[in-house]
Structures are given as structure tokens and as C-alpha cells.
């Protein structure tokens, strides 16, 4: 009996170790290679003991200044898209939660269907349209697109969170003379904050790393960091792997910290409504 339990525990430990290895080894390789001397990155046999160097980061700074401009653009776009997605999702989630009609129920299905459309399908037809509107190569176009792609998921998430807030609170506020917007701002938003943060995590991770829309709709003024990284994997002049890994680590760090900090909200978002009876 006891040996059986030990086997179960050992099995779980092995499974967790395998999962961690699977997920962390590529990240560890990138981070380690970013501080490894260039000659030793792909050396065979693999060099495990090396003198760390920040040389690749210095080179990144010196030769790829546009990468850091790209990080700023990524940050602006991510912040804008997240704000837009949160506002739209919260408002829509509130409506879906507190109202019911045949049209609304059908439109939930529509929201889900929208998520099933591959981005490339809408990207190319949008290109001339965005161009005509003069929005090409602006932060705004990416903010709107990123937010649009997450409003559906965000709305469903927010509805689930808001469903858990007793309607009596709305009614009490209404009796005190509050309008819909006031109720949303003063009652719903504070209580649904974990849901808002969960939506934010999804949008931030997506917007920070997104490539396709950024590639199609930007050129110089709103060029995001992933686009600059893609240029580093140059097919003409070769890849400077040390610099590429330094850029990847720099790109990865803020989002990793953000996700770790927001981890519990992410879990809450994923399990929202799971125990609803």
C-alpha cells in the first residue's frame, strides 16, 4: 500500500519534471546563450562552464537601436490594446450578464465564431482599407486590431465574472439613484477586478508577442519588437545568434515578470464559472 503511494508520488514528480524540462529548457537555452561568448553558443561538445558576458547586450544596444524603439512601440500598443479590450469587454460582459434576449444569446455564439476566423483571412483584405483610412503604420491600427481579436474572449470571461456578482447590489445602487454607467463603474468594476486582470493578461501576452498584424500594417513608425527580431534572423547577411538571443531575452523578460505576477488572476480567468451550479 505504502509502496504504491510512493510510486504515485514518484510518477507525479517525473511527470512534473518532464513538463518543466519541456517548457523551460528552450527558455533557459535562449537566456544562457545570451550571456555566452559567441564562439561557444553552438560548440560541440556543448560548453556548460563559461564566463558570462554582457557583450551581446552591448552589441544589441549599439547595432540594433531600432529594437529598443520597437520595445517602446510594443509597450504603447500593448497598453492601448489592453485598455480598449478591457473597456469593451467589461461593458459588453455587463450587458450580457444583466440582460437576456434571443438576439443577445445568438450574438454570444457570433462572438465565439469570430474567434475561429484565422487572422490571415482578415489581414489581407484589411490592408487596402487601412491604407485608404491613412492608418497604416500607426499605433492605433494595431491597438484596435489586437483589442478586436480579444473582445470576444474578454466579453465571455467578463460575463462569467459579472454573473457571480449579486444583482441585488445593482438594484441597491439603482435605488440610491445610480445610473447604469455609475453602477458599472462603482459597483461592477471593483468587484470584477480579478476578471479584468485575467482579460488583461490574455491581451498583454498576445499584443506583446504578435507578429502577423504588425508585419502587415506597420513599417517604421509603429514597428514592434517582434518585427525587429524577425529581421535579425536575416537570410541574406546571416544570423548573429548572440545578439538574437539577447534581444529575445530582453523581449521575454517583461512579459515573463508580468505573467508571473498575474499568475493567480490568469488561473482565476481560466477557471471562472467552473464551479457555478
Amino acid at each position: 500500500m505504502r509502496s504504491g503511494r510512493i510510486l504515485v508520488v514518484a510518477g507525479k514528480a517525473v511527470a512534473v519534471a518532464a513538463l518543466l524540462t519541456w517548457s523551460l529548457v528552450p527558455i533557459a537555452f535562449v537566456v544562457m546563450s545570451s550571456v555566452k561568448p559567441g564562439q561557444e553558443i553552438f560548440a560541440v561538445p556543448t560548453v556548460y562552464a563559461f564566463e558570462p558576458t554582457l557583450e551581446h547586450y552591448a552589441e544589441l544596444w549599439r547595432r540594433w537601436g531600432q529594437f529598443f524603439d520597437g520595445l517602446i512601440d510594443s509597450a504603447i500598443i500593448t497598453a492601448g490594446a489592453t485598455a480598449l479590450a478591457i473597456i469593451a469587454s467589461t461593458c459588453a460582459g455587463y450587458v450580457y450578464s444583466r440582460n437576456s434576449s434571443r438576439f443577445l444569446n445568438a450574438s454570444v455564439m457570433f462572438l465565439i465564431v469570430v474567434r475561429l476566423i484565422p487572422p490571415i483571412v482578415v489581414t489581407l483584405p484589411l490592408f487596402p482599407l487601412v491604407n485608404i483610412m491613412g492608418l497604416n503604420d500607426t499605433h492605433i491600427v494595431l491597438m484596435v486590431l489586437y483589442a478586436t481579436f480579444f473582445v470576444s474572449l474578454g466579453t465571455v470571461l467578463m460575463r462569467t465574472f459579472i454573473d457571480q456578482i449579486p444583482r441585488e447590489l445593482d438594484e441597491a445602487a439603482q435605488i440610491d439613484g445610480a445610473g447604469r454607467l455609475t453602477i458599472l463603474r462603482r459597483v461592477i468594476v471593483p468587484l470584477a477586478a480579478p476578471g479584468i486582470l485575467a482579460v488583461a493578461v490574455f491581451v498583454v501576452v498576445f499584443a506583446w508577442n504578435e507578429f502577423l498584424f504588425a508585419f502587415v500594417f506597420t513599417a517604421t513608425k509603429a514597428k514592434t519588437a517582434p518585427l525587429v527580431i524577425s529581421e535579425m534572423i536575416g537570410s541574406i547577411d546571416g544570423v548573429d545568434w548572440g545578439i538574437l538571443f539577447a534581444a529575445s531575452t530582453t523581449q521575454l523578460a517583461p512579459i515573463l515578470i508580468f505573467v508571473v505576477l498575474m499568475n493567480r488572476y490568469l488561473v482565476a480567468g481560466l477557471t471562472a464559472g467552473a464551479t457555478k451550479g
Partner: protein
Amino acid sequence: MKDKVTFDITRRGFLGTALGGAAALAAGPSFAQANTLNILSHRVHQAVLMPDGGENLLAEWKSAQDAEAAFTTFDSNPLMDRLFREASLGSTDYGVGYMVDNRPTSEIASLFEPLDSYQKDDPIEDFGDIAPGLVQGMTVDGNLIGIPVRHATQGLFYNEALLEEAGISAPPTTLEELVEQAGKLTFTSSAGTPVTGMILASDLAVFPVMFARAYGGDFITKDFELVPSPEAMEKGLDTLRGMFEAGSLPRSYATTKNDDMVTWIQQGRAAFTVLPFARNAQLNNPEQSKYPGKIKATAFPGSSSLPSGTPMAAVTEAWAMVVPKNAGDKQLAWSYIKEVSSKRVTTGMALNGNGPVRVSSYADPALIEKNPVAEVEAEVLATARGAFPPFPEAARAQATMLEEVQLAVIGRKPVKEAVAAIIERVKPLMPS
């Protein structure tokens, strides 16, 4: 909770904000400024003109035209995608684009300005000095649509230190010697590194085409003849198959990419590879390579069975500057092209690592001193040509060919059958 919160939205306020926002959006993005030439290129095209800490080769043009050059850069395939999309719009802000020479089909060429009349009215300095083969590559349906600006011609790179270690005193001069040397160089080096004789990427047409040409064959000729000599193609693939069997090509051949070739040769994991001569500096970069100064280049050799005097035609790829038909200030674009094509700038770019399109650049003493492979590159360029000519289904034709080549090389299909399949499957994709 605070006692009182006001959040008033009136219809008028909302409408005003929305209209104001829309107006700001409409007015906000202004892309092209007066006397700014927007250029769509690869980063390397910009870097050879304006190197970090080096002379800005566009300074004279900027001053003469009172203009700025604003580069938007992408990697090769995304760049082509973007260039063609921009050229398909009603108008574009880009005055000049850089196009690779395996792309201009008749349909694509029709999106770009024929440059013959510009050349006639305001000619480029000593135009005849630009390699005629490269100019021919950018002439579509009788119209010159691009001015060559860079070429990447394939050479055979070898690790001199490994050759010496294996007792080989000189690089091969025939394909048979190459195969033999690659066999000898499949060993464990004194550094303890397992060495593979040769590394080639399996996803690029360049290599099977070079091996077929080494026996006098080809994949698709410039006159659109498909596999003109099946026997030569079979011999080429047989050679690759033999090398794979002998371990002179990596076991991972089917998944080997271009970047693997660079890292393997830099790390001493492979003794030979085929890359553009322009990679010489990178392969010998002491910060990346374990063999700085020891990676040398020579011409890819033809088979000894080739009739005497038959040149081995290495694969070359060229870039050219084009002007979208829907561009704004085409005269400014032409002035840029003229400047970049001048002897001074061509040689200046060559000193910064660009493959010069002018024959005269190779005679420049500074280039000869700076680039140890300049001389051999010039020789190879003289007979080099593209891997295959551009046509609408070229990408599918290449993918089909590579599929069959991979099966043959790793022994999943007899070579003869693979060559027959290439002919059968690619034929329907050929232009009528």
C-alpha cells in the same frame, strides 16, 4: 467608497469626442514628407550604404537632391510580400523597392515602372559595366524593370585547418576530388569534434542545381527547358546520395537549414559547405567562429567528366532596385537609383560587404585588399546564373523538386525514379 461620483456622458459630448477622434486619426499619420524618398529594402541594403561608424555613401545624393532616404526594412520573403502589396495599391508612399531576381514574372513586372526611358533620358554612369547577365535577369518582356544592385554568388567554403589535419594540401578542383576529400574529412578532429565532410541545407534548390550543373545538367534553364539532361541530374543526385550514405553529409540532412551550414562550418563540425562569397566575413568573424581566418573559399568544382572548357555555372542571386508604377516622385527615385548604381557608390558598398554588380569594382585595389575572396568571386560570377528563371509557379516547382531530391538523397526513392518524378510533377507547373 466615496460618497459622490459623477460620470456624465451626454450624447453631444460623446458625438463631439468621436468626431474629434476621427479627425485626429485622419490627420495624424503623415508618411511621406516633401523630399523624402521612402525605400523598401532588406536591412543589409541600407547597411552597405550607411554602415555603422562608416562613410554615408548617400551624403552627396542627399545634398544634391535636398532629400532624405527613409528605409523600411524587412527580411527577404516578407520584403517581397510587402513590396508587391504596396505596388498593388492605388498609390504607395514607397519610391524605390529592392527586388530579388527570381521574382519578376510578367504579372509582377507589370506593377513596376519600365526604366528604359529613364536610362535613355538620364543615363546611369557606364551602364555597360554592370554585369549583363544581372541586367538580363531584370529585363521582363523586353522592359528593363530593375537596376541590379547586389549579387550573392555561391562558392565552395572549406576549413583549411581541418584539411591540413587530414593531410589535404589543397582544396578540390573537381567534383570527384570534393567527394573524396569530404569522405576523408568525415572524422573526429583533434579538438574532439565530430566532423562531417560537407553540410548542405535540404530546403534550398541551389545545391541539387549546383550538383546537376557540375555534370552539365540543370533544373530549369533560362529558356524554360525542364531538366535538359536527366542523366546529369541523376549523376548529381547519385553523388549526393553517395555522400549521405558515406556519412559525408549529416544524418540530419533532411532537416538541415541555411543557418546550420553557417554554424557548423564556424564550429568546425563540417569541413565543406556552399554559401555566397559574401558570407566570408561572417564565417571568419573571430567573435563567432572557432576558425577565424581559416575558412577559405574557392569555386564550386565541376565534374572531371565535363568536356574540357565547359565552365561550371554556379548559382547566383541578384537584387535590383525597382520603382513601383504607383509611386509618387519617380524622378527622385531615379536619381537615387542613379547614385547607388554609380561606380563610386558600387565600390563603396562592395567595401562594406556588398556583392558588387559592376565588373570594374573587382579591380579596385582597396576591395582586393579588404576582401580575400574578391578575385575568385569575380571569376565565378562571370559564368554564374540564377537557380531557375522566375515564373508564377516557381515556388511550387522548387518545393516539388526538393521533395524528390530529399527522398533520393536519404535513400527512400531510387535516384532515377526521383528524377523522373521531378520531370513529371514539375511539367504542369511550367509556363506554357
